[in-house]
């Protein structure tokens, strides 16, 4: 019996010498896995234009009915995205979202991506609705934001490269 007791205590003492497995969140944050699904981000192209074309396929794919999209028409004087259509309203209700990532799969332009951010908290239900300005990533350094005034006839395609899907 003593033998068993000694073996148990040995484990205890061994663990005492090792460091703790817990991290002191939030001072210390663990890196998420590559395919982690956190809060959504609306991506931009390198030139600053939004990838989202307001097609609402994410909303159609969403099993929780968390996404709401309204589209409007682009002009060359006021261009948000390539092609004719852009999302003038894009909202995700983070309380409804189940982070399944179907929206990401449905997106034809890879505009909506589930990011790394899992730190969501709200004190009001309305705050849980993330609007387009909260979801859209900022334009990269030195790049113009949207809307942009562009040369006519350049951005005529909504989905820039229509290729066969790669196997």
């Amino acid at each position, binding site marked *: 019996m003593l033998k068993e007791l000694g073996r148990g205590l040995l484990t205890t003492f061994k663990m005492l010498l090792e460091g703790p497995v817990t991290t002191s969140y939030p001072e210390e944050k663990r890196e998420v896995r590559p395919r982690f699904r956190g809060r959504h981000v609306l991506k931009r192209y390198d030139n600053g234009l939004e990838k989202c074309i*307001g097609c609402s396929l994410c909303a*159609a794919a969403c099993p929780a009915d968390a996404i709401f999209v309204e589209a409007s028409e682009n002009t060359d004087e006021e261009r948000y995205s390539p092609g004719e259509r852009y999302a003038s*309203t894009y909202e995700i209700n983070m309380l409804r979202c189940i982070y399944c990532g179907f929206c990401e799969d449905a997106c034809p*332009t890879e505009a909506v991506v589930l990011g790394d951010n899992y730190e969501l908290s709200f004190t009001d239900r309305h705050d849980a609705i993330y609007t387009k300005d909260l979801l859209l990533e900022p334009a990269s350094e030195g790049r113009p934001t949207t809307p942009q005034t562009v040369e006519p006839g350049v951005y005529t395609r909504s989905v820039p*490269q229509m290729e066969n899907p790669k196997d």
Partner: protein
Amino acid sequence: MRKQVRLTIDDRQITAPAGTLIVNAAKQIGIDIPVFCYHPKMEPVGMCRMCLVEVGRPIIDRNTGQPVLEDGQPKIQFGPKLETACTTPVSEGMVVRGMSEKAKAGQNEIVEFLLTSHPLDCPICDKGGECPLQNLTMEHGPGKSRFLYDEKFHLEKRVPLGDLIFLDRERCIQCARCIRFQDEIAGEPVIGFYNRGRATDIVTYTDPGFDSVFSGNTTDICPVGALTTSDFRFGARTWELKSTASVCGQCPVGCNIVFNTRREAKADGRIVIKRVMPRQNEQVNEIWLCDKGRFAYHYTENGARLSRPLVKKNGKLEASSWDEAAAIAGGKLRSADGEVVVLASGRLSNEDLFNLKSLADGLGGKALLYTQMGGGDLTARFGVGAGTNFGEMGAGTTILVAASDLYNEAPVWHLRVKGAAKRGATVIVANGRETKLDAFAKYVVRYAYGDEVETINGLQQKEKIGEAITSAENLVVLFGSDGLGLNGTSNLAAACAELVQGRAGKPNNGLIGVWPKANDQGAWEIGFRPTDDLSSELKGKTVYVVAADPAGDDPQLAAALKEAKFVIAQELFQTATADLADVVLPAQAYTERDGSFTSGERRAQRFYAAVPAFGESQADYAITALVADAAGVELADSAGQVFENLVVTVEAFAGLTYEILAETAEQWPVVGRGDMYYGGTTYENTRGLGAHLVGWGERGETASRPRVQEETELRPKEGQWLAVPVTKLYDQGLTVRSSKLLESHIGAATVTLHPEAAKRLGAGAGELVEISLNGTTAQVSVLLDETVSASVALLPRGMGLPISGPVVAGLKKV
């Protein structure tokens, strides 16, 4: 009856009348053969080749003329090539294989071919979700293209054909459905093909572009997203929309429609109408809808609408509560001692009008119809019988269109009368000027404005026209208000009624009024009557004005309203009449509530609430019930209950119930189901075809001979003009002008003159002239029309000029 032939389609034996196309024969037994260019309402052209099937015919022995038998069965020989099911008529013993591997391969290849240059931009396409090409690509598409992306033919994606219709050249598959619709069905070939081969392109020939009031229909039958409306452009995805059945409230045709609605952030989270689509009713509008019905709905969501009851305090209208407003209005009506006038227009539903009539009766007051067109008592008696259907009229039917510009007054009737003419019906147009229907009429009778009654009376004496009228198997007479006022139309109606007197109550026979409002017929049936002298009727009375703006239409009526004892206005907007009112009650638009309209063909049709009410507004019948309660008259306040009361009180509605109005039946062609490629995106009718009112003939009553009233003739003196009112489809009416989209179609007030007459005046086309009539002077621009008489000036109604009937006017150059 045509000879019946037996054939086999996909192993199913059927019989079909000889001459039926394979695609239709298959459809009738529920087999869908894919099509793009074929449309059941149009002639087949076999352009897209999508409907390729294997067709086999029995081998006939030349010596005996009998089929060669093999194992007791006729030996079938299949052609070496596939045939198009949309152009091949059925024949005896034919065997069709639409699902065989060979047929499937052919269909698959056609889809692959059509997709060679298709942009595949379904994510941003307005047709996405209800697109025949998308559906058939999912079914037959190759999944992978054998063509290189770089070799795709890129074309312009945003081409406005007119201000209402956009063309995407890349998406077009050159099926010519739109071109054929404009040509065959609308009779306005304003678009066509340009160029050849891959560069084939749809272009418009007119300026302004796509100048047709039926243009919206091309977007319904376009099997791809090439044609889309500017109204719905990127408005929503089709699967996000809710649909509510309704009836168009713009004209007396009563087209069945669907309101597609969606909650919108742009509209502060309200549920709004995103688009109007036709709903199939083969007896009313088939699957078509005019552009006014499709695009003029925006008034319902105008933010300027009345949202709260208003009560005049110290000479100013102030916001009030329903209780207070109803108590004041009801109190005044009760204390008026029968000196009450209820003035309502045909924009209201049957339920609203019945409650208003009951209130007027209960108070011992008058129920007046606000209109400039008479003769409804005659259409109620000699109206077309149950089962009337323009779609069935053809040889043997005579249709007389008297003093009506159907194209502007009731476009879908224009389209249907034109269709009847194409099938062999004799169309007679009698008018004081050229109308668009003239081109399709067998006889055109031109008269001088003022001679309408004599002309109609004299028709039977004319040799050929008289023959066409008297010996016609079926006779339908449509009368309108082109160039006429209340008295003129009443007299014209009487003259027209004499032509159909003996035929009343029979299907496809009778009198139809081309009313200015959707439910004028219902108002007449319920007992509303117009009056010659509205001004004197209003003076000194307690007036309850509903859905009418007399003060805004005519300064004389405004003056009369000022002399009224007390004015209650029930409206959508703060109109000039509402400005003069002591109590203003906000009414709901018909899109926000239930009810029913009676069409010009005397068909009662239900509509349903599509969107929530605006502000605190209430349904007209409910407001009337509220006011009546305060006035000591008890009325029902739910649509269903009011309709039940209506049915037991008004004989014409006897036997009808909401359930009967909501009944449906199988219709041909089958549209709006899963196979959108066959009939287009028109909705299937699942919420009711409506029902015909009981006619006098059916009630076994004999009608008395209509009475013709005397009218003073107007003869302009030298230097004066005879100004006559005509109807313009897109006017400045309350229910039209809120649509920004139609602004350029509405335009400013005009006067139409003969070119010679205009030259005498010294004014050219588009120049301004000053017109003075009925004590008003205004500047209007000149339009020229060679078919107008020399001293006649045509003035469109509802364009800001007070013209209720023919009147002597002065014109001078500015």
